[in-house]
C-alpha cells in the first residue's frame, strides 16, 4: 500500500512533469493560467524578446481589473498610464490568441471572482496567476498560488513551473460558530492565531465542520486570505457543495464527462493517517466578529474588544510592530473598538464582492441610512455579480440607504484606480490587506466582514448589525 497522503500532496503528485532530482525543484504542470493587466506586460515583452510563443493559449484566460474605474466604464479611462496598461493587455492577448474579458464585458471582473464564476476553476487543478490572492481558487480543492512576473512568463512559454515541494499544514476548525460570525471573521481569526508568517512555505488545508458547512463563496473568502498568513496556498477538500457549484457553468464538464469528473473529484481528500507538517486546531466557539486594528492582517481583535498596546505582546518583534502600527493608525491603547469613528466604508474586493457578500450587506442596509458624511463604495466583483444583484434589487436597497453602487473591479482594495483614501482617512473595508497606504497614501484600513462594514457605515463607528436600532 502506498503512503497515506494529504490532499495537497495528491494534487501535487498528479501534476509532476518531472520530479526534481538532487535538490532540484519539481517541474509542475499548470492547468489554468489567469492573467491581468498589472503583472503581465513585462512577461509578454520577454516572450517577444526571445521569440517564444505562448505554449497553451487555450489554458490561459485574461481579464482587466486592477486599474479599471468603477464609474463611467463606457468612457475611455482618464488616467493615461492606466489606460496604456490596459491597452497593452488587449494588444498582448490578441497577438498571442488568448481569451480576454475587457472592461464592460459581462464576464469581466476581478480575476478571482471571474475564474470560479466561469467554471474555469475546478477540483484537482493547478492554477496560477500573477496575483497573490490566487489562493482563492483553492476553495474548490485545487492548488492555486500567486506568482511573480518572471514566473508568468515561464508559464506562458512552457505551461509549467519549477517549484520546490511545499510543506503541509492543517488548520482545523470544529464546533459551532457564534451568531453573526461570517467566513471573513473565521479567516481573520485564523490569521491572528498563526501570524503573517505562520504559513510560509506551506500549503494550508482548512478542515473541520465549519468549512464543510460553508458555501463555496464562504470557502473562497477563507482560501483567498491564505497568503495573509504567509501560506503558499490554501485549499478545502471538494464535496457535494463544490460539485453543485461547478456543474452547469460555461467551462464545466457536462453529462457523462461530469459524472466521470465527480467520481474522480471524490478521491481528492486527505487519506486517513496522512501526517501534516503542522497542525493548528481552533474551536469555532472562540471566534468572534473581527476588526483589524493595525497594519498587517494578523493584527485583529473581536469587535467588542479594545485597541491593544505594545505591552500586550510578549514577543518583542510583535510589540515593536504593534507600536509602529498604533502610531500609523493614530490609536491609543485601550480605546474600545466600537468607539472608533470611520470616514469611509468599502464593500468589495476578491475577498468579499460576490453575491452572498452583497446580499449580506444589503440585508443590513435595508431600510436604514448611512451616517452623515460617510463615504461608501459598494463594488461588485464582476459583471455577472452586478447583473445578479440587479436582478435581486440590491442596488436600489443600497442607493436608498445612501450607499454608492459602482461597477466591477478591484477598486479601493489597492487604489490603483481613482477610488482612493485620503491621508488620515479611516476605512472599514471588506478587502484583505490593511498595509500602510494600501488603499491610498496615508489611509488607515480596518479589515471587516460585509455585515460589519455595512453596520459601521450606518452607525458611523464600528458596529455589528445587532447594535443598530
Amino acid at each position: 500500500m502506498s503512503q497515506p497522503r494529504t490532499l495537497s500532496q495528491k494534487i501535487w503528485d498528479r501534476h509532476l512533469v518531472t520530479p526534481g532530482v538532487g535538490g532540484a525543484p519539481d517541474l509542475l504542470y499548470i492547468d489554468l493560467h489567469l492573467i491581468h493587466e498589472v503583472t503581465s506586460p513585462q512577461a509578454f515583452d520577454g516572450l517577444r524578446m526571445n521569440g517564444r510563443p505562448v505554449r497553451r493559449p487555450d489554458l490561459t484566460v485574461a481579464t482587466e481589473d486592477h486599474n479599471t474605474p468603477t464609474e463611467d466604464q463606457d468612457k475611455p479611462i482618464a488616467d493615461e498610464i492606466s489606460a496604456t496598461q490596459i491597452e497593452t493587455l488587449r494588444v498582448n492577448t490578441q497577438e498571442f490568441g488568448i481569451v480576454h474579458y475587457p472592461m464592460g464585458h459581462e464576464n469581466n471582473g476581478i480575476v478571482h471572482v471571474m475564474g470560479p464564476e466561469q467554471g474555469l476553476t475546478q477540483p484537482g487543478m493547478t492554477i496560477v496567476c500573477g496575483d497573490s490572492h490566487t489562493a482563492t481558487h483553492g476553495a474548490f480543492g485545487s492548488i492555486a498560488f500567486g506568482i511573480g512576473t518572471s514566473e508568468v512568463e515561464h508559464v506562458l512559454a512552457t505551461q509549467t513551473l519549477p517549484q520546490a515541494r511545499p510543506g503541509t499544514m492543517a488548520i482545523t476548525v470544529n464546533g459551532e460558530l457564534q451568531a453573526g460570525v461570517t467566513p471573513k471573521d473565521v479567516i481573520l481569526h485564523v490569521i491572528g492565531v498563526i501570524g503573517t508568517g505562520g504559513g510560509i512555505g506551506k500549503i494550508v488545508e482548512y478542515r473541520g465542520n465549519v468549512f464543510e458547512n460553508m458555501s463555496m463563496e464562504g470557502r473562497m473568502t477563507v482560501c483567498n486570505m491564505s497568503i495573509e498568513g504567509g501560506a503558499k496556498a490554501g485549499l478545502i477538500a471538494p464535496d457535494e457543495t463544490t460539485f453543485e457549484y461547478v456543474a452547469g457553468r460555461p467551462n464545466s464538464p457536462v453529462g457523462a464527462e461530469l459524472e466521470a469528473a465527480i467520481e474522480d473529484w471524490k478521491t481528492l481528500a486527505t487519506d486517513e493517517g496522512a501526517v501534516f507538517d503542522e497542525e493548528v486546531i481552533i474551536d469555532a466557539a472562540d471566534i468572534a466578529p473581527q476588526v483589524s486594528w493595525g497594519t498587517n492582517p494578523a493584527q485583529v481583535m473581536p469587535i467588542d474588544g479594545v485597541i491593544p498596546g505594545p505591552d500586550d505582546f510578549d514577543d518583542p518583534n510583535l510589540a515593536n510592530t504593534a507600536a509602529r502600527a498604533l502610531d500609523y493608525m493614530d490609536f491609543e491603547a485601550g480605546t474600545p473598538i466600537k468607539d472608533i469613528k470611520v470616514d469611509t466604508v468599502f464593500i468589495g474586493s476578491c475577498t468579499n464582492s460576490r453575491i452572498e457578500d452583497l446580499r449580506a450587506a444589503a440585508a443590513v442596509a435595508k431600510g436604514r441610512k448611512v451616517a452623515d458624511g460617510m463615504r461608501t463604495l459598494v463594488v461588485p466583483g464582476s459583471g455577472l455579480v452586478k447583473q445578479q444583484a440587479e436582478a435581486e434589487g440590491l442596488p436600489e436597497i443600497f442607493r436608498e440607504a445612501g450607499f454608492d453602487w459602482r461597477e466591477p473591479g478591484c477598486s479601493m482594495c489597492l487604489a490603483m484606480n481613482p477610488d482612493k483614501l485620503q491621508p488620515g482617512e479611516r476605512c472599514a473595508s471588506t478587502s484583505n490587506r490593511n498595509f500602510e497606504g494600501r488603499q491610498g497614501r496615508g489611509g488607515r484600513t480596518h479589515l471587516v466582514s460585509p455585515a460589519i462594514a455595512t453596520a459601521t457605515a450606518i452607525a458611523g463607528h464600528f458596529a455589528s448589525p445587532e447594535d443598530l436600532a
Partner: protein
Amino acid sequence: MKAVRIVQGTAVPLDRTDVDTDQIIPSDWLKRVERTGFEKGLFSEWRDDRDFVLNQEQYSGANILIGGLNFGTGSSREHAVWAIQQYGFDAVISPRFADIFRNNCTKNGLVPVTVSDEVNEQLIRAVEADPTLEITIDVERLTVEAPAVGLETTFPLSEAIQERFLKGLDDIGLTLRLATDIDEYETTRKPWMPAQA
C-alpha cells in the same frame, strides 16, 4: 539573468518586521509596463520621511539591504525585486522571507540571504554602529562574512537555485529542454479540464 558569485559591500539596516511589498513599491508604480525605472519608487512613501534609513547619508552607496522578519510579505508584485535591484542592492538579508518574494529574487539575481534571528540582529547593530562595515556574501560557499566584527555564518540555497545564480541561467530555457516530457504529460491530463476554443 546575470551571474552572481560574490556580493561585497556595505549595508543598510531596515530594522522593521513585516515589510510588505506594498511598502517596497507602492501600487501607483505598478501601472508601468516597463521592467526598468523602479528605483525611484523603492519605499517611496517611507522615503518622504527625512529620517528614513535610505535617506541617511552614512548608508549611501550600500549594496546590501538588511530587513527584519517576514520580509516581502503580501502582494506578488515582482516590481518589488526590480525596485530593490535597480536602486542598487545586490542582496537582501532577513531571518525569514515571504515565499513569492523569495522566488522573485531568485528569478532576477537578487540574492536572498536567510540568517538566524540572532545573526540578523547582530548585523543590524553592527551596521548601525559602523555604516562602513564590509560584508561579503559568497553564493558559491553560501557564507556571509563581516570579518571586522568576527561574524561568519552560512545561509541556505537549494543547489538548483545556487547553480542558476552562479551561471546566470535562464529558467525558461532550462525548462524548454524538457519539452518532450511536457508533451508526454499533456497526453495524460484529465479530459474534462477547461480549455478555450
